[in-house]
């Protein structure tokens, strides 16, 4: 599962913080590609497979506020 966060809209610090909080639900790998920060999720916990992407994106956005 791949999520592309636009560098102009999302902060790397918030993404890293969110990964730290979600690391027990999946394996995360982070790459920077042109204008995007790519987050790849693997070995996702079955119980959260359907919602993890959306919840993670919302959480990153929430962290951007602080």
């Amino acid at each position, binding site marked *: 599962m791949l999520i592309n966060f636009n560098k102009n*809209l999302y902060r790397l610090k918030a993404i890293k913080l969110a990964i730290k909080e979600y690391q027990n639900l999946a394996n995360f790998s982070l790459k920077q590609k042109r204008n995007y920060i790519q987050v790849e999720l693997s070995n996702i916990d079955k119980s959260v497979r359907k919602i993890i992407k959306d919840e993670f994106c919302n959480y990153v*956005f929430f962290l*951007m506020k602080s």
Partner: protein
Amino acid sequence: MPIKENNQIKFRVNLQNYPMEAIYGAAYVFLSKAYLFLDNKSPEKIEVFLKGKKKFNKKQLEELKGEFLNELLNYTVRINLSKNNKKIREYIISQALYSAFGDDKVNKEDEIKYEDDPLGIAIPWEDKYGKEIEKTI
């Protein structure tokens, strides 16, 4: 025309009409109502993806978009008002701080110290009534 599929609605917001701060502000409000994702493929337009946390039909998704745009407008007005009133706000705050400082100075000047003794309390009894008291006793 917004795209509606997979319980999600996608639409574009023009940065010439709405400031980026307003988009962020409206987006924060929607975090509890929907899943939100932002992208910008062109520098002047932001793509907003809103996905229902529960199952929404097309009409409900359209309503969600409408609510988002209303919130966006609300934030835009607030930001514009804040910009327009910046000078007067700064003036009011500076006046408030100045008068608070000024009052403190005046209070210190008006303050009566105990050494001043305007009621003559510090004068010994004998100096004030000395002999008369001896007579009354």
